[in-house]
């Protein structure tokens, strides 16, 4: 099976458990099991090639320019890990099916599990380190979901968060390291990187890259000083703990160290960092584990300790160390997974994991006793079990390792760690299963059904078989070791056997086991000593660091972003002015190249009107209605200015937009207070005013300089002017630019406009659906209502003028391509015509006659414009290529037909729809429920003359 499929299967399969959730727990677990089994079988089909020493690859170019490709490779190491992940995954799924309670959502659990599984398989099969990083982060995320699966438990949430923080930070560091590595080698493909040992180790950036990558590995594999997250992750359901901490998550860091071993190892830096961290972790984990009373915490710290052991072996940089590490990974996965499952069984059956409340379970749970004892003895390093073999190899390697010129340091520490390791294994057996039977268990313990004990029992097969007949595992371990070593070293010739003769490692082993037994016998005094020793609590430190980060971030955020909009505005303006001042004072000034146009009296009057209106607006802005009128005046002068300066299209747009804007603001003002009170101090107003004046002077000076100088480069407008008629078929260059040259821009703009209108509609709906509705209905207007709500003159006038407005709009639309006009302006004109109906005859009257919803009009407009653009594909041209032709239909004159016209129609409809939807939404706020559509123009409000008249019937009546 293709490697792609092996990696993709768990991800694709992750969709299934959720779907199967309603089909029952059996189906849910069954489908997950099937998916994993399929992936495993797919992996095993590649086994012959791997055993033949070939490198199985699969390659798809993804982003070759970035060096990021989906390249997968399968060698011995990847095969070994993928087998562990998928094989143990199968056992975990079977176990999890029986472990989870009825109230736990099984589909969710297995979805997370499959996501995690896929990410892990992705890590071990990646050939591209960037791809590996993606999977690496995916494991952090999916393990977060798994650890926090029991969302109702605060320990679960905290443990998940801590795991994500620590491993996520490590992942970030590793991204940096991998990028440096890729830069050194010039390729992000592992197969290339692994060939360049000398190049990498000679590079000055080797040490930073090494440190960053090791940060990633150490955090993932819980090496000192990042070991603290792993015990807290024990809040997860036991199947998750068994999976994450025996075969997968924590082994990812180990995997990467093994993967990078050929290029990174062998230097003093590697030796000191990796061996040092491994040794400390091994000893520390073992000592803490002995004194933990929670069964899972004990196992968690023992995992930390064993990971330290493996790390230390990889750190030595010898081929024998690497082989021992690989062998121990295999052995540790088997016995540790079984132990976690046994702990889960005990928890499941006795409802406690506290060792102090247990004891004497050997007769009550004989099956569990057998499994757990075998696994624990293997972990302790007792002969004829697999843990003994790799521990012997570790001790032998330790014996040869000289750390800081001291040949005794490593062997002594290794023996010391093994001693504690043996002690906690014996404690696990002795304090849980042996001893007198008790009568105060929280629940009556008994062996569970085969669904729970069979998976760990299966794991006992390799534990015992390898332990008795080590030669069974030898070829496979050597194959994996060969792929770890690559070309860097030869596979050591040592044979796997139980009896090596009276070698130092044997004596060390005996010391460890005997010492462990003695330590257990003196456990109670040792525990008192331990409890009396002050020691730092990692979680407290971690929480303090996190809290400090949160405080700093809040201080920064609240300092910068305190919710005072006027302050932001002021800061922005001052910044812009300051930057402009800097540019101005450091730049050079070219001489003026244009002669100023003369100023006539009419122009001066226009200018005076504009300035007076603006200043008046600022001075009188507290009277909001007056301010609105003055703003209309400003807009009017601006439109006249556009006409004067040869921009008729702009003038028409500006003046029509002005109308709808003022209507819109009037509608809003209907609800807002109509005066702005004086609140700011004089000082503040003076400050704002000064900033405003400086900004204004800046804008004026800048504009003045710009206007008196020609552009430095020739303007591209020449092209537009030259090609407007030839290429676009229109003489109104502005319109041709809009619908043809820059049609794609316009297309985007009408979409934005449509979205804005829909947003307004949605906001209105939200307001009307919420508590605001009641307030609106009970609102008493602050001003007396007009007597005749729909003045007859206005009603008649607007209805008469409507067809004329429509015709003008149509005319403006059609002539747009050649004369001032076009879709935008026509749309605005028609909108004004329709809005007039609303204003004169009332909302109900107008909307009762509305045949097409405005949403639809917007959509139709965007659709027509888009389809016009797509149409050019059918004639083999790029998107939005326009075409035009001249046709003559008697008795009309010859006229032009351009595809741009269809596009302009789309613009027209979008503008009408957007403007109308916005205004309609605003007016709906004002609409009362009991408003009825009046058929008659003269619906005089009878309550005008006699306010207290009790519910006088409407003279003309409704309908």
């Amino acid at each position, binding site marked *: 099976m293709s490697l792609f499929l092996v990696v993709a299967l768990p991800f694709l399969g992750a969709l299934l458990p959720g779907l199967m959730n309603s089909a029952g727990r059996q189906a849910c677990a069954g489908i997950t099991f099937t998916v994993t089994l399929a992936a495993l079988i797919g992996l095993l089909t590649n086994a012959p090639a791997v055993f033949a020493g070939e490198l199985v690859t699969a390659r798809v170019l993804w982003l070759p320019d970035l060096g990021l490709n989906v390249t997968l490779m399968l060698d011995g190491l990847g095969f070994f890990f993928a087998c562990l992940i998928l094989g143990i995954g199968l056992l975990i799924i079977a176990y999890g099916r029986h472990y989870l309670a009825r109230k736990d959502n099984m589909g969710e659990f297995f979805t997370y599990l499959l996501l995690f599984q896929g990410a892990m398989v992705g890590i071990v099969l990646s050939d591209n380190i960037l791809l590996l990083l993606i999977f690496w982060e995916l494991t952090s995320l999916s393990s977060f979901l798994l650890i926090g699966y029991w969302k109702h438990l605060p320990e679960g949430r905290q443990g998940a968060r801590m795991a994500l923080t620590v491993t996520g930070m490590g992942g970030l560091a590793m991204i940096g390291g991998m990028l440096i590595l890729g830069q050194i080698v010039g390729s992000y493909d592992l197969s290339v990187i692994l060939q360049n040992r000398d190049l990498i180790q000679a590079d000055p950036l080797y040490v930073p890259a090494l440190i960053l990558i090791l940060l990633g590995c150490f955090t993932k594999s819980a090496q000192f000083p990042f070991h603290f997250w792993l015990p807290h992750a024990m809040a997860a359901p036991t199947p998750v703990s068994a999976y994450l901490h025996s075969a997968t998550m924590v082994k990812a860091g180990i995997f990467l160290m093994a993967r990078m071993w050929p290029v990174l190892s062998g230097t003093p830096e590697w030796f000191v960092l990796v061996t040092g961290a491994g040794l400390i972790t091994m000893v520390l984990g073992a000592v803490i584990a002995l004194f933990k009373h929670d069964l899972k915490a004990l196992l968690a710290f023992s995992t930390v300790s064993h990971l330290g052991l493996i790390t230390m072996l990889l750190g030595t940089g010898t081929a024998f160390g690497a082989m021992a590490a690989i062998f121990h990974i295999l052995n540790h996965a088997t016995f540790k997974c079984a132990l976690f499952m046994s702990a889960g069984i005990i928890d499941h059956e006795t409802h406690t994991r506290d060792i102090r409340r247990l004891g004497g379970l050997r007769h009550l749970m004989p099956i569990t006793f057998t499994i757990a004892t075998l696994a624990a003895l293997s972990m302790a390093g007792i002969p004829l079990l697999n843990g003994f073999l790799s521990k012997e190899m570790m001790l032998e390697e330790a014996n040869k390792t000289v750390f800081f010129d001291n040949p005794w340091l490593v062997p002594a520490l290794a023996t010391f760690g093994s001693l504690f390791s043996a002690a906690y294994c014996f404690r696990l057996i002795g304090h849980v299963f042996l001893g007198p039977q008790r009568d105060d268990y929280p629940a009556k313990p008994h062996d569970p059904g085969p669904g729970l004990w069979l998976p760990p029992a299966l794991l006992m097969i390799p534990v015992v078989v390898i332990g008795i007949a080590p030669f069974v595992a030898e070829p496979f371990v050597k194959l994996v070791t060969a792929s770890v070593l690559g070309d860097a070293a030869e596979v050591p010739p040592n044979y796997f056997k139980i009896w090596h003769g009276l070698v130092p490692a044997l004596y060390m082993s005996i010391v460890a086991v005997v010492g462990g037994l003695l330590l257990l016998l003196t456990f109670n005094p040792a525990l008192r000593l331990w409890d009396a020793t002050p020691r730092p609590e990692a979680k407290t430190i971690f*929480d303090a660091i996190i809290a400090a980060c949160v405080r700093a971030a809040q201080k920064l955020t*609240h300092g910068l972003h*305190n919710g005072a909009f006027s302050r932001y505005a002021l800061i922005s303006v001052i910044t812009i002015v300051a930057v402009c001042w800097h540019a101005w004072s450091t730049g050079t000034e070219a001489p003026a190249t244009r002669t100023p146009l003369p100023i006539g009296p009419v122009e001066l009057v226009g200018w005076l009107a504009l300035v007076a209106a603006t200043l008046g607006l600022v001075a009188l802005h507290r009277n909001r209605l007056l301010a609105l009128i003055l703003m209309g005046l400003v807009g009017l002068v601006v439109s006249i200015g556009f006409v004067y300066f*040869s921009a008729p299209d702009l003038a028409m747009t500006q003046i029509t937009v002005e109308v709808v804007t003022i209507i819109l603001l009037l509608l*809003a003002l209907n609800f807002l207070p109509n005066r702005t009170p004086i609140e700011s101090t004089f000082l503040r107003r003076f400050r704002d005013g000064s900033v405003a004046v400086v900004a204004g002077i800046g804008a004026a000076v800048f504009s003045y300089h710009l206007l008196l100088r020609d552009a430095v480069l020739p*303007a591209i407008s020449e092209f537009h002017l030259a090609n407007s008629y030839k290429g676009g078929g229109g003489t109104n260059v502005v319109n041709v630019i809009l619908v043809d040259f820059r049609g794609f821009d*316009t297309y985007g703009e009408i979409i934005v406009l449509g979205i804005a209108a829909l947003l307004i509609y949605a906001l209105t709906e939200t307001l009307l659906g919420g508590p605001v509705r009641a307030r609106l209905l009970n609102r008493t207007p602050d001003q007396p209502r007009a007597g005749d709500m729909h003045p007859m003159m206005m009603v008649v006038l607007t209805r008469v003028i409507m067809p004329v407005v429509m015709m003008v709009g149509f005319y403006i639309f059609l002539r747009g391509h050649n004369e001032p006009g076009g879709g935008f302006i026509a749309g605005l004109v028609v909108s004004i015509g329709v809005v007039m109906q609303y204003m004169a005859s009332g909302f109900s009257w107008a909307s009762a006659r509305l045949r097409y919803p405005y949403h639809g009009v917007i959509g139709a407009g965007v659709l027509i414009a888009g389809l016009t653009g797509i149409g050019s594909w059918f004639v083999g041209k790029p998107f939005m290529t326009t075409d035009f032709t001249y046709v003559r239909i008697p008795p009309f004159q010859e006229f032009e037909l351009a595809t741009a016209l269809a596009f302009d129609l789309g613009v027209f409809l979008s503008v009408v729809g957007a403007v109308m939807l916005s205004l309609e939404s605003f007016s709906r706020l004002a609409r009362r429920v009991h408003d009825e559509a009046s058929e008659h123009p003269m619906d005089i409000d009878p309550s005008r003359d006699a306010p207290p008249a009790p519910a006088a019937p409407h003279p003309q009546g409704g309908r």
Partner: protein
Amino acid sequence: MELLVASAIGVLTAGGVYLLTRMRTFPVILGISLLTYAVNVFLFASGRLTVGAPPILTDGVEVYADPLPQALVLTAIVISFGMTAVVVMIALGAYLGSDDDHVDDPDPAPDSGPDSAPDSASDDMLGEDRT
């Protein structure tokens, strides 16, 4: 003439900035509108001022006003209507919902206190398994 246009841009900018820094929503909206005028006129003027030469191709006419800024400003005017409408709607919704049309948050967030770390710090230390 350039002087008049430039100074008009300046006056509009100054008025806009002043209103922008007011404390109620409505003046701020007016300020944004004034700034919009200023920006649109400025963009338009970046095509330099031309009198009596609209960019409508006519036989025998060689000089035209720069059409490109005009096209850009045309859409800008329409879009600015849409944006004004959205801002007004938001302001209106806020006012109707809270009976308050102040722009600034009523109470600038207090300097980080112990209560301001809602999750990580106050989520209790239950995860500890110290005995």
